[in-house]
Structure formats: structure tokens, C-alpha cells
């Protein structure tokens, strides 16, 4: 029962943050995950990426488009070259992980409050019964 419990956290992300759905869908593809990892290291043009992943320009454009719509990648056209880099959404989500754990624990402890209230009530009832 660790503080960082990826299983529970993932459920929570799913439960509380529907906006992540698009990101998860975008990442449900091994090439797109590779592209994102690559862009995490350095910016690259679509042509570079197509070469690196041994893919047609059209195919790579499609993948980058999906990542872009999910907010995971941003692209910028400079002259004739479209440069891709990791999007702000991705970074934000990555940075926000500690806050997500805080939320998870807040929810857990709110439930614990209920259990504790029940226990206190039971003690009070028992005490009253004994006194009566």
C-alpha cells in the first residue's frame, strides 16, 4: 500500500480528468509514443521523423496530427519546414502528478472520515447503552 500507487492513480485520472482521454487515445499507438519520446529529446521536422520511423511523409503527418489534437505536440511552420515539439499539455500533465496524488489521498481520507464517524457513533451508542 504505497503512497504512489499507479493503479489507483490511473483510475482516478480516468475518473476525474476526461480531457486526458484524447491524450491516452493518441498514445495508444507505439509509433506515436516513439515520436513523443523522440521529441522529448529534441525538436524535429516531420521529414526527420518520417525518416527516423521509416515511414512516408503522409503517414507521419497523420500521426503528428493526432498528437497535436491531443495537445501532446505543437508544430510550427518556419519557411517550408514544419517543426514539431512536445506540447505544453504534456508537460503540464507530467508536472501535475504530485497534485494528482494529493487529490487521490484527499478522496481516500474523505472516505476514511466516514468510517471514523461511524466508529465514533458506535462508541457513543455503546456508551449510552452501558449508562442506561
Amino acid at each position, binding site marked *: *500500500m*504505497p*503512497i*504512489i*500507487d*499507479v*493503479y*489507483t*492513480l*490511473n*483510475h*482516478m*485520472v*480516468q*475518473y*476525474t480528468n476526461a480531457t486526458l482521454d484524447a491524450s*491516452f487515445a493518441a*498514445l*495508444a499507438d507505439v509509433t506515436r*509514443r516513439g515520436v*513523443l*519520446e523522440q521529441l*522529448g529529446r529534441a525538436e524535429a521536422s516531420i521529414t526527420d521523423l518520417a525518416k527516423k520511423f521509416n515511414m512516408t511523409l503522409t503517414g507521419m503527418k497523420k500521426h503528428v496530427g493526432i498528437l497535436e489534437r491531443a495537445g501532446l505536440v505543437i508544430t510550427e511552420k518556419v519557411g517550408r519546414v514544419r517543426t514539431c515539439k*512536445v506540447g505544453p499539455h*504534456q*508537460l503540464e*500533465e*507530467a*508536472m501535475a*502528478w*504530485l*497534485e494528482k*496524488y*494529493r487529490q*487521490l*489521498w*484527499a*478522496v*481516500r*481520507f*474523505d*472516505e*476514511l*472520515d*466516514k*468510517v*471514523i*464517524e461511524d*466508529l*465514533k*457513533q458506535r*462508541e457513543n*451508542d455503546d456508551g449510552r447503552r452501558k449508562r442506561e
Partner: protein
Amino acid sequence: MAAGRESESKPMKHRTTVERTSDRELVVTRTFDAPARIVFEAWTKPDLFKQWWGPKSMGISLSSVEMDVRTGGGYRLVFSNGMAFFGKYIEVTPPSRIVWTNDEGGEAGPVTTVTFEEKGGKTLLVMHELYPSKEALDAAGTGAAEGMGELFGQLDEFLVTLSAR
């Protein structure tokens, strides 16, 4: 026995804090409106533990809770999808302190200490988790900001749970 019960009076919710206090440590704190022995009881009795740990308001439930809460005893939690968390209690001092290992991840698992400090009928709960190394804690989540790889690991697991539905 329901007569006269003040079921409408809701206690004020206390703030939960989570902080990374060093390269290897995380600390969670929260105050409860009850004496330490009650908070300790809710933490150490399997049927009670099961009610809040989920958390069920998020649609998560534990299918099995085995807890032998004494120094040297073991525990095993299984979520409804079969995922298990297990370890050993290194120290159990009712009603103020529990220390346990987290062995599901192998040797790099953290050690968790929870203390219950009673003051004026309220209890301050401090949950402290110490990882064997900075790398182990980073791998557990913190590193996501620095290394995207860790985030992908989490997403992979998330996708597995999604596809299992």
C-alpha cells in the same frame, strides 16, 4: 437507535497535503476529528480498511484484504482487477505508529511509515514514504516531469486497464 442521532452534522473536511521532502521521500498529512485509537482502528481492521482505501467513490474497490497487523506480520491487498500490493509490517505500535514495506515492485520498494498524533481529541496523520534511492522515487512517478519514459509506463498500464474493461 436512530432517534436523536445527529446524522446531518457533517464534520469539516481537513486539507490533505502531499510533499516531496527530499530526493527519496514523500510525506502526506491529514487531520481527523477523532482520537488516535479510532483512526488506528480504521486503518488496521480489514473490513474497515476496505471501506475507504479504494476509494469507492472513485469506483475502485478491493476484492481482498489480508492484514496481520503486528510487527513481523504481512499484508496483501488485491484490487478487483487482480492487481496486488503486498509487504510486511516492520513495526506496529498501537495506536500511534505503523511501518511497512512495499514488496510488489521487488527490492526497490519504499518503506512507508504512518504516525497518528493525538492532540485535543483530534489526530494528525503523517504518512511518510522513504525510497531506497532517488531513482526509485523518480521511477514511481516524480520523474515524469524530467523523463517522459516514466509517464509512458503509467499510460501503458492505464491502457491495459482500459482494454481489460
